[in-house]
């Protein structure tokens, strides 16, 4: 199969407008004859479900949580980018496009990224109209702040809870449509498979998480808005329930997986304290606006800190190494996430880390508190400081925070064309679930932007084109493919429930996470990846022999839910490793030790690897087939990223 990204012809700035005009429309009276399934109710899912229902389509929305408002978009802290140029500081749609392409280390599609930058301005208007309480200035206008990887202030924010407020905005729009009967909402329902009829996505199989009922649902199109797969690492900043199952099962039904090895390790997270840890907590990147990152200059001082002989404040100014400011004078502490993370790892590997484990660096606010006063700092970051205090029992107003990188976001995901359609006709992927806009590294405050862009302003146009093509003939679950898929799901559930070994699913998950972090995390090597491939395959084999899955299907059964998700992570993990092995270059979050500049920066190979790796599932235990979508750059010059 030849990959066709369907990127419109013409100049960059006109592509989306022209494309919108060329897309077929469904007339208002016909829209109610179409059913659309939306899986996931985060920013992408809730905004898509609401917008499509407003247009007149019948929408069925699904989430595994007890309410659509709980989706993990809610936890995003820092903000959302938009090229409004309200600050008069030189921002523009082209600059946001350029920053995003460059930040992604030239591994994203120009056309998609430009469209993202273009609709970013509409998102802010939309959210404000919904009553989202963004931060304001005394004159009543919206406030902005700067964020990593950019030299302009284009980030809109709502204290440290931007994701929450944006999601509640989308949730309110969704609620309005539920009230009007245009969206039927299924909570505590997990998608376990995709139903493909005559090569087209036509429905899903779900499990009701309260009574275990395996149900089938039919629709003219299926939208996966199911988030990323960071939990393959076990420890990540994702919610406990975040999983890859919906996307992975769709992958096994024919949807190609794009760039699975591109994962983002976020530099500012609270360090791990012990084996009991269930998740990692992010401290918003916005903290790097006012916090300074440092470690002691010498291993000796670092040792003393770790033994508790001295405290941070005992270390003299001249004995501190503000390593980001030293190495990157023009961006300083605001370098992109991948660069900040790698540098933190580097100083810790040199033995200059802090905290008991030595796996942490300081994020110090004392200069800002002296300059701005404690109240101003508290007004900006109060809730983050409180959260840090609660978790660590250390007061960040009095001593520097300790931070360390953690898995945060996955730029990879289901391959989609310009219309957000996967390689299965009628199946779409939106938000973090697709691979499309961030290349090999995502800039801060861009995830919220992409989720809402896809849901509010892209899919309402593009899905219509497909629907108009297939026509409004009713779809139902009578086709044998539904029964067949349901049976396969039931068999899989039965097999999982028959596992009565001696190792818990959580233990497998932790083991997998350790392998992934060690060999497919912040830095990767051919040798390590090959080792990981073997380890994962052995672990997966062991899982299907020795895991314990308790209880029955016909009840609330968290043991079963987890087992299904971990089983899918055990397969995805190996594909990530394959992808990382295939990509013999370093780019963005993918750092191969063999490929670095003399200064230790990522060394791309544009001649051989300026492509999207889209993987096709070929059957159980078969190697997946690699398809390449060449990336064409007509508007930016590929250069070595420099933040010096």
């Amino acid at each position, binding site marked *: 199969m030849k990959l066709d990204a369907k990127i419109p012809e013409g100049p960059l700035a006109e592509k989306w407008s022209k494309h919108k005009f060329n897309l077929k429309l469904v007339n208002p009276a016909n829209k109610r004859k179409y059913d659309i399934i939306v899986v996931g109710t985060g920013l992408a899912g809730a905004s898509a479900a609401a917008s499509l229902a407003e247009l007149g389509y019948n929408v069925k929305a699904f989430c595994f949580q*007890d309410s659509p408002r709980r989706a993990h978009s809610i936890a995003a802290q820092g903000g959302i980018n938009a090229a409004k140029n309200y600050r008069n500081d030189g921002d523009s749609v082209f600059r946001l496009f350029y920053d995003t392409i460059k930040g992604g280390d030239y591994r994203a599609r120009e056309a998609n990224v430009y469209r993202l930058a273009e609709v970013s301005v509409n998102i802010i208007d939309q959210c404000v109209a919904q009553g989202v309480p963004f931060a304001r200035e005394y004159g009543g206008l919206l406030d902005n702040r700067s964020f990593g990887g950019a030299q302009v202030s284009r980030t809109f924010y709502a204290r440290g809870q931007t994701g929450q407020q944006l999601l509640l905005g989308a949730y309110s729009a969704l609620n309005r449509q539920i009230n009007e009967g245009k969206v039927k909402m299924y909570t505590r329902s997990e998608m376990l498979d995709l139903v493909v009829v005559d090569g087209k996505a036509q429905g899903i199989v779900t499990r009701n998480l309260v009574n275990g009922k395996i149900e089938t649902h039919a629709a003219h199109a299926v939208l996966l808005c199911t988030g990323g797969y960071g939990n393959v690492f076990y420890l990540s900043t994702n919610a406990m329930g975040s999983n890859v199952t919906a996307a992975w099962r769709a992958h096994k039904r024919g949807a190609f997986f794009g760039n699975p090895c591109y994962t983002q390790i976020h530099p500012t997270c609270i360090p791990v304290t012990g084996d009991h*840890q269930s998740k990692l907590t992010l401290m918003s990147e916005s903290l790097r606006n006012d916090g300074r990152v440092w470690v002691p200059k010498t291993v000796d001082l670092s040792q003393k800190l770790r033994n508790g002989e001295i405290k941070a404040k005992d270390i003299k100014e001249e004995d501190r190494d503000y390593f980001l400011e030293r190495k990157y004078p023009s961006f300083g502490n605001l370098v992109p996430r991948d660069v900040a993370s790698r540098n933190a790892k580097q100083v810790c590997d040199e033995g200059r880390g802090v905290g008991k484990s030595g796996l942490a660096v300081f994020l110090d606010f004392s200069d800002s508190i002296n300059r701005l006063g404690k109240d101003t700092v508290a007004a900006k970051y109060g809730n983050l400081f409180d959260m840090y205090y609660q978790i660590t029992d250390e007061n960040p107003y009095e001593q520097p925070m300790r931070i360390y990188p953690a898995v945060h976001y996955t730029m990879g995901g289901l391959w989609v064309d310009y219309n957000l359609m996967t390689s299965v006709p009628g199946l779409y992927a939106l938000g973090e679930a697709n691979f499309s806009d961030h290349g090999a590294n995502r800039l801060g405050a861009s995830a919220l932007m992409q989720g809402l862009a896809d849901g509010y302003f892209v899919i309402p146009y593009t899905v219509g084109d497909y629907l108009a093509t297939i026509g409004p003939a009713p779809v139902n679950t009578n086709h044998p493919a539904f029964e067949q898929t349901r049976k396969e799901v039931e068999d899989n559930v039965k097999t999982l429930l028959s596992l009565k070994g001696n190792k818990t699913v959580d233990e497998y998950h932790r083991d997998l996470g350790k392998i992934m972090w060690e060999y497919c995390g912040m830095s990767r090597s051919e040798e390590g990846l090959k080792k990981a491939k073997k380890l994962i395959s052995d672990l997966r084999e062991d899982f299907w022999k020795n895991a314990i899955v308790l209880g029955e299907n016909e009840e609330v059964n968290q043991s079963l839910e987890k087992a299904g998700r971990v089983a899918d992570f055990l397969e995805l993990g190996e594909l990530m490793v394959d992808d990382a092995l295939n990509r013999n270059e370093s780019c963005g979050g993918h750092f191969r030790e063999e490929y670095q500049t003399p200064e230790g920066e990522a060394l791309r190979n544009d001649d051989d690897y300026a492509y999207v790796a889209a993987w096709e599932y070929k059957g159980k235990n078969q190697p997946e087939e690699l398809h390449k979508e060449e990336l064409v750059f007509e508007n930016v010059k590929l250069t070595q990223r420099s933040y010096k």
Partner: protein
Amino acid sequence: MNLTLKVWRQKNSQTPGKFVTYKAEEISPDMSFLEMLDVVNEKLVKTQEDPIQFDHDCREGICGMCSLMINGEPHGPKRATTTCQLHMRSFNDGETIVIEPWRAAAFPVVKDLAVDRGAFDRIQQAGGYVSVGTGGVPDANEILIPKTIADEAFNSATCIGCGACVAACKNASAMLFVSAKVSQYAMLPQGQTERYERAKAMVSQMDDEGFGSCTNTYACEAQCPKEIKVTNIARMNREYFNAEFIKG
């Protein structure tokens, strides 16, 4: 730390429940309360016993999914803290901890410590929104909002919908939850057009769901992990009252 847990176990909403005692051993004070339960659950699974069901997701104190009455207090002893952000250093070695689900007729038990808070969603669906569709809205900076108003509306908007206010209230009233949303929109210019219909519709749905009445004990405010103020309730009462007299 070693602890004794008395945990409410209930198979489903139709089956009566009971307290079961468990030992939580070798617990680190740095664990969160839910991580402590993870440890207990993993041990239960190892001995082929059904693990304790509880709702949780983000574990950052923002999704509102976690709950739990801990020693009779929603989200436990620490103020302004959700259960997932409560750490074991808030307890003493050797302590006995009683863990129950939210207790309210409008929140039926799903299993063990997990309850069905669908009533909250249905109240929001009744009117917790501004009726704007996607597209065709004015430029964001055309709507001026004084910072003080924006900040106050924000304070109401931070509600995470966890249900602690209902669990804390002896009447199982949902007034704090409902009033937070009513207030957010009543204060903002975007919410003006529908402010009275909204108050009426949301209150009416709240009553239909079987929540109790407010008798001003302020237990909700004391226990709210996001410190939502009872002044929201006063504002909602005024909105509701005005709705009788002012049309649109």
